């Protein structure tokens, strides 16, 4: 019920040039896990946005700060049975997240910015912020394609 196996762990720096490297790895990983092309693009977008926010907000644009990304294949309990999912955990040592700022904004308000969290929430099945041991943690879960419960159930 609670099995998890490590797929990959990445340690990187808060440099915008590293974003494409994570996208490259995750694109392949998602494809291997059986996600459709469109789902692969969604997973990659969600993680890229989460990293972008860490670089811009947690580290206020300061380069060379540590970021860790863990990718696990997990089983999440679901009505008795376990369903398989990809879990992505992002860790940073930047400014403590202010949950109040995470409310997002009305998309009707046409202005640049403010889309990142919306993209993360739209592309992932679970999004969970926390703070432990002086580190910000963002946990993202995306259910593997074959295991999606049938629509309307």
């Amino acid at each position: 019920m609670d099995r998890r196996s490590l797929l990959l762990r990445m340690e990187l720096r808060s440099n915008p040039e590293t974003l494409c490297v994570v996208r490259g790895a995750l694109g392949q990983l998602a494809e291997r896990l059986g996600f459709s092309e469109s789902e692969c693009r969604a997973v990659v977008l969600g993680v890229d946005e989460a990293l972008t926010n860490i670089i811009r907000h947690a580290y206020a644009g300061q380069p060379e700060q540590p970021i860790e990304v863990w990718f696990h294949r997990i089983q999440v309990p679901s009505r008795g049975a376990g369903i398989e999912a990809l879990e992505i955990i992002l860790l940073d040592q930047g400014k403590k997240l202010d949950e109040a700022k995470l409310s997002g904004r009305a998309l009707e308000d046409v202005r640049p910015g403010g889309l990142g969290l919306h993209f993360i929430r739209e592309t992932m099945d679970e999004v969970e912020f926390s703070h432990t041991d002086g580190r910000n943690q963002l946990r993202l879960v995306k259910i593997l394609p074959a295991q999606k419960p049938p629509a309307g159930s």
Partner: protein
Amino acid sequence: MQISARHLDKMTVFDISGDIDLSTSPELRKPLLHELRELRTPRVILNLRAVRYIDSSGVASLVEGLKASRDVGSRFILFGLNTTVREVLQLSKLVRIFEICENEEQAVAP
């Protein structure tokens, strides 16, 4: 990301390729805003066909371009939206605010 400009009569077409993300979106924003605010080109057209990836910072740059075009009374047109770009714009719920053409012919039409 690569960006190059073609200057036609009273309009400029920007051909954009590669990934638009936090690290590259400034290279998109700057020439766009210059073209609109400084040069006040009446029609600014973006060819997005060869864009391989775009995230929220890329979309933000497009929104900035759109706002600048409204300020100076220029037209701001996107064309060549591939699946990747279309999906992200749809996710942003901002597809409707942009003027989008099927191809360059339509975008440059009088």
